[in-house]
């Protein structure tokens, strides 16, 4: 009976009857800065590593955001000279690379690190030391990428950073067209951070499959954990092709190989295939965690169980599989056969079916609920709306003939920023507001949160709704300036203004985190009246997470605890 007792969320864990692990008196001694630093650098605790991932991601979010603002200033008026073409090309390359690899990937794995063990009732990840290794390798990759600003041309030349676009199409990356070492930094930094990513992905899968607490069968895992199993599996088969392609690129650049050397029979199109075999599933690697956050936040704030759990699991796995067969929709204009174009149109449209199921299931979860619009739910509601819109523009882009017009135009830029910012970043903000109290013990300020939400959402729509239009009017991507007579000027000015508003919102968010961390309202164990295991332990959780190993009987163990008269397991098949 002992381990079937649940730690009571209302009472400090240490006061429980099974306190064998809790005899250590609370450490009230003041730590020196050096001691604190040492404890963070040497930690193998999944929670600390999760926070490190998040801080690292937020830091680079600010860096990439600054690059975006510089880009938007340059484009605000035609024939602007704010940035030189070379600097502009470096900035948009670094902005894209940073956002995908140093912000997106690290933040999603920050969430995974912090929450997956807690949600499955485990004390840590399956491989804690691998976990620390992965973080530091990833972090080193990011620093290496940014070191290129100093070291790209070696010590004798002026510094430069990669300027070949985040997709780095061959043969622009060949030695002949990209002399110096900027492109090498791009490839090596991403290979290095890729090792870390693969390590974490392995860790997440092993944790979810091998560390679950008693009673947590696969079909009782929180959807969040399910999604991260899918994401990690997808990561394993998408990051590695990029690594392979980058190894080939380095063989070409350093050993005189000919993989992408069009003068020696090599193929520029092969790089595109390899890159997008990575690049498209990567979008789902980033967006599935946004779904994962939605799957936790939307039910809790609607006060209802998620609608169609099994269908959500199936849809996630379905999206992952279909996403592996759609990459060439980035290549409708490279001159594939009409049959290939038709095939990739179909496979791309098929993604719409499982994603449609997800949107409907979220709506059905909200339907009949009592939706509390606290800041996390505000962000996740905006997420559903924006994800719907980005899905619809995605359908437009899947239509190959229309894609011949829209491809590489600002319409595409608007579309994928709708996904990356409107869906992913928005959901990540919501997730931070939701789990910040768990990680720090303090609530984020709700007033500042509302300011952050409204400014960010309004700025987002000013920027990215309007950004579709120049694309329809013929404005291609990656251009550092444009002619005055094309009629894109006013639109770009509006887009830039929206970008600044979003920048202000993000600064409010950073301020909110700092202020709330010091003097935010105390959170308690379970501030949102939620249902998954992470809310059963204290905030922040102790190093060992749970004093006793939890035992669960359903998908919502805390619901069962709070509603013993009507527990979930009676209804779950």
């Amino acid at each position, binding site marked *: 009976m002992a381990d079937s007792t649940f730690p009571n969320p209302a009472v400090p864990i240490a006061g429980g009857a099974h306190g064998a692990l809790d005899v250590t008196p609370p450490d009230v001694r003041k730590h020196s800065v050096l001691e604190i630093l040492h404890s963070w650098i040497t930690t193998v605790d999944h929670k600390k590593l999760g926070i490190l991932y998040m801080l690292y991601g937020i830091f680079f979010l600010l860096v990439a955001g600054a690059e975006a603002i510089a880009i938007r200033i340059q484009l605000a008026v035609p024939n602007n000279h704010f940035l030189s073409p070379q600097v502009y090309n470096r900035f948009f390359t670094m902005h894209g690379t940073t956002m995908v690899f140093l912000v997106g990937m690290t933040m999603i794995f920050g969430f995974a690190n912090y929450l997956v063990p807690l949600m499955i009732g485990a004390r840590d990840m399956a491989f804690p030391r691998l976990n620390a290794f992965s973080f530091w390798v990833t972090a080193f990759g990011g620093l290496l990428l940014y070191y290129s600003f100093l070291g790209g041309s070696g010590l004798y030349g002026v510094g430069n950073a990669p300027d070949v676009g985040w997709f780095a199409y061959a043969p622009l990356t060949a030695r002949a*067209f990209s002399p110096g070492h900027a492109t090498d930094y791009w490839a090596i930094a991403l290979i290095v951070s890729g090792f870390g990513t693969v390590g974490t992905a392995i860790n997440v899968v092993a944790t979810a499959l091998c560390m679950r607490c008693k009673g947590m069968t696969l079909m009782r895992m929180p959807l969040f954990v399910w999604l991260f199993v899918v994401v990690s599996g997808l990561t394993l088969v998408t990051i590695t092709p990029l690594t392979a392609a980058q190894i080939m690129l380095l063989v070409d650049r350093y050993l005189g190989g000919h993989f992408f050397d069009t003068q020696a029979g090599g193929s520029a199109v092969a790089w595109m295939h390899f890159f997008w075999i990575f690049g498209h599933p990567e979008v789902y690697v980033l967006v599935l965690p946004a779904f994962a956050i939605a799957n936790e936040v939307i039910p809790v704030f609607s006060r209802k169980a998620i609608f169609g759990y099994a269908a959500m699991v199936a849809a996630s796995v379905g999206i992952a599989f279909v996403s592996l067969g759609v990459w060439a929709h980035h290549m409708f204009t490279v001159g594939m056969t009409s049959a290939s174009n038709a095939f990739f149109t179909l496979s791309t449209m098929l993604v719409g079916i499982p994603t449609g199921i997800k949107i*409907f299931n979220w709506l059905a979860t*909200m339907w009949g609920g009592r*939706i509390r619009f606290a800041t996390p739910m505000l962000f996740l509601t905006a997420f559903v709306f924006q994800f*719907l819109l980005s899905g619809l523009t995605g359908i437009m882009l899947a239509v190959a*003939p229309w894609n011949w017009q829209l491809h590489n135009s600002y319409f595409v830029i608007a579309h994928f920023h709708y996904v990356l910012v409107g869906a992913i970043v928005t959901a990540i903000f919501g997730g931070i507001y939701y789990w910040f109290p768990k990680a720090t013990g303090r609530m984020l300020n709700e007033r500042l949160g509302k300011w952050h939400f409204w400014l960010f959402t309004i700025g987002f729509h000013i920027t990215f709704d309007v950004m579709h239009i120049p694309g329809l009017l*013929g404005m*291609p991507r990656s251009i550092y300036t444009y002619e005055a007579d*094309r009629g894109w000027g006013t639109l770009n000015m509006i887009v830039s203004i929206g970008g600044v508003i979003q920048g202000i919102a993000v600064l409010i968010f950073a301020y909110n985190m700092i202020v709330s961390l010091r003097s935010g309202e105390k959170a308690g164990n379970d501030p949102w009246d939620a249902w998954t295991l992470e809310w059963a332990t204290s905030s922040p959780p102790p190093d060992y997470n749970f004093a006793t190993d939890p035992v669960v009987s359903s998908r919502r163990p805390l619901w069962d605890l709070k509603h013993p008269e009507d527990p979930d397991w009676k*209804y779950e098949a």
Partner: protein
Amino acid sequence: MPWQWLWKTRNAIFAAALLAFCCGIVFAQGPQAATPSIFTPASTPATEINNLSYFVLEITGGIFLVVGGLLVYVIIRYRARDTDDNREPAQIYGSNQVELAWTVIPVLIVVVLFLTTARMIFAIQDAPKPKAALDVTTVAHQFWWEYRYPALGVVAANELHVPLSNTQDPKPTYMKLLSADVDHSYWVPQLSGKVDLIPNHPNELWIDPMRAGLYVGQCAQFCGAQHAKMLLRVYVDTPDQFAAWVKNQQQDGVQDPSVAAGRRVFETQACMNCHAVRGTAATGRFGPDLTHLMSRDTLASGILHNNKENLRQWIKNPDSFKPGSLMPAMQLSDDQLDQLTAYLSTLK
């Protein structure tokens, strides 16, 4: 079939409403003559894509209204209120019938969209090439366009001239797309969708412009420092204009003894390593053919008006207009610059 009915009854109201919504801001300040909008097509491929895009917009717009409406309804109807009691709402875990329904409906939409799209892909991409078609070989360079008319013996740069076509007697232009260095993409939105120019990977593109005039566009695949200033200009000429243009282009370069000094500069200062002037010793192919330089409206791939002053400044320091362009500043003296500009200005 139902979507064909939808297609036929798509009307000006829908298009106007949508365009007003999308482009209101643009038109508020007056239509721009040079805006290469995909919604003002002038050639069959662009027109067909335009029609297809309205159809797709109708379907996606419908989905948006339904799902977005549901979301708004849910937000308003089911928001928590102060008057709520403390009890949790009824817990519903799922419903197979409902879930099946919202799986089947998207499947049907996908089928409709796919069939319509596939038909269009084959219609545009596999269109048979008529005998009367004009062949042009387009070679993209960092950062300019080379046009070769193999059947006419014409070589031009940056400004493409093609004949007007019409439905009774089609005179389409078929372009073979090549690249001399990195990836580029050919995009004149009013004439057709874009097609990439990739080294070692020839592509094809066809247009049949139905209205005479100038159509602009630009390179749509990032190709290096001056990707932004690799502009496209397509002149659709009436048959007479086109014949006159071809006749002039077929001539050798004008040999005017009064500018012999400039020609000497051209032939001794390495200009001819990269540029050709037919009828002289200059046969370089890295840069644009200059045989009929003065027949063009623009310089440097469409970014400068073609006049003596711009030409002189461009030769003096190409980087002042196009930093990163591959044409070097030749460090010519002012006299040499004057002579060279005078010589080039005779190349009508």
